């Protein structure tokens, strides 16, 4: 038991530790051979260098914007779809397949036709990442859908029926009863979808050539021989991701469904 926990923790924390180490050590130490596990010299020079690069601010705001739009768009589509799927099994079978279809291909294979489409629609390299968040929504939909469908399935259908009898319209029953009761799933879906977009690389690389979100930026910095800078960006990317998880985590744990029956 303890060994499993340690193994999982090591697998999770080792890369994280290395990224943090590289972010706060001089770049020449990153290239040292044999590699060092613990930093010999701590420095803020990478972080300072980041502050001077204007692109970082643009990347940060673009990534945030794209992730926010992806979450919003995914929920707008996935919520009603998941609700219908949970209540009508025959609709569910079709939706299930259709939504997962987009995830059958590697994103890089989809990125090229999507880039072509974005160019035609005038969304390519958009300063607010419109083409990109649409593409991210495509990727995130199956995840949002599956998580939310599970949530709606756990809400007893009698609660909606009771709401209908009490005078609520179908939409009213959804809004006032079902939606508050899937809040844990809603939090989980938001979190996962946010991370899908935040960390996505293939579409980000090909759909945004000069207005770059953060993951391609990390890639460029690495490719041009700046592991320290790249790690500093990666470390910076942790902050909003951890923030989103911390904000949504309490909702994940709430026992909001307890007490409806028996």
């Amino acid at each position, binding site marked *: 038991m303890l060994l499993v926990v340690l193994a999982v923790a090591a697998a999770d924390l080792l890369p994280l530790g290395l990224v943090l180490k590289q972010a706060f050590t001089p770049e020449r130490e990153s290239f040292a051979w044999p590699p060092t596990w613990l930093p010999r010299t701590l420095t803020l020079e990478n972080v300072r260098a980041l502050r001077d690069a204007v692109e970082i601010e643009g990347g940060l705001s673009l990534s945030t914007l794209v992730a926010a739009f992806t979450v919003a768009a995914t929920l707008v589509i996935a919520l009603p779809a998941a609700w219908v799927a949970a209540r009508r099994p025959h609709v569910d079978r079709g939706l299930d397949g259709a939504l997962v279809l987009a995830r059958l291909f590697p994103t890089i294979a989809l990125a090229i036709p999507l880039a072509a489409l974005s160019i035609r629609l005038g969304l390519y390299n958009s300063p607010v990442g419109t083409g990109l968040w649409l593409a991210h929504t495509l990727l995130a939909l199956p995840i949002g859908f599956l998580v939310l469908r599970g949530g709606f399935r756990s809400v007893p259908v009698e609660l909606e*029926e009771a709401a209908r*009898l009490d005078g609520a*319209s179908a939409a009213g029953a959804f809004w006032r*009863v079902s939606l*508050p009761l899937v809040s844990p799933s809603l939090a989980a879906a938001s979190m996962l979808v946010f991370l899908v977009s935040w960390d996505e690389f293939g579409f980000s690389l090909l759909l945004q050539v000069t207005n770059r979100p953060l993951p391609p930026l990390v890639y460029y910095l690495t490719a041009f021989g700046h592991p320290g800078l790249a790690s500093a960006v990666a470390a910076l990317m942790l902050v909003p991701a951890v923030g989103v998880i911390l904000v949504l985590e309490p909702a994940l744990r709430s026992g909001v469904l*307890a*007490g409806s029956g*028996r």
Partner: protein
Amino acid sequence: MARAEFERVSKRFDDVVALGDFTLAVEDGELVTVLGPSGCGKSTLLRLTAGLETLSGGSIRIGGRPIECLAPHERDVAMVFQSYALYPHMTVRGNIEFPLRMHGVAREARRRRVEDVAALVEIGAILERRPAELSGGQRQRVALARALVRHPALFLLDEPLSNVDAPLRAALRQHIRALQRRLGVTTLYVTHEQAEAMTLGDRMVVLEGGRIQQVDAPGAVYERPANTFVAGFVGTPPMNLLGAECADGVLRVGDQCLGVPPLVQARLGGSRRLILGVRPEAFAPAEGERADGLVAVPDPARRELLGAETIVRARIGQDEVTVRLPRPGAELPRRVEAPLEALHFFAAESGVRLGP
């Protein structure tokens, strides 16, 4: 408050008839219980009335107004679900208030009506709690309050006590009955517990296979079951049913010959076979050797002492019957006898009551 009329109501799910030809009028202020085994169509009846399912045929009128084409909330019907279906994210007050809010009742009136109905079901002290913090009996009362708060024309209860512990059940049963009398609300109460159906109902409907088997006052259903299904379903232990032959006005059961009432003879027509019904409690110790009722021989090895009574198996020829005798402990009588007027006669094929 209103009269509810069901006219040839039916519901089919694909090829399965869940409810067929259901015709019944529930009088204004009456409480009718619907009794049947699971899958008999009793919940379907409530769901059709509430508008949660659509009718395959027939019509339902409440207060003379056809409702089968109306949306659930336009029907003026309230329902207590078997699972209570309380909104777990709202307080008790929020739950009870919900239907009033949906119907646009003003804030002050809402508060007053919630508190009135809460006092009625004795939950005034727990209005600010959440359902998760309540006991089963309290949740049940909240569900009742939520249904009653908007003064529905028709009140539907779907096995409301099946999730309550046995000791509490009797008390809640009395409470529901008293509440229903006091409010005078027309009520349809569905249950699979005959004790509930018998004690609560002004009349009871026995349902099986989606068809009405009998509609009558509980006492009359017990006294004069309309067919062998009702005879076997109502009463604990159930009525004994025996095959018998009838010829020339004489009934042969095992090695006994009994007289047959003329009415039964007439209704029997050409058939010789029939089914004889006798309740376990119809037997009494036989006095003397001569007997003109149905005689059974108890088996002392197979008796159960239940405190106020004794249940014992007894033989009639090749057949076995259950006999219920008062006063346990004492010596078992050698023979027990059920008088002729306590016998029920049913047609052998259809199971329909022939008389008396």
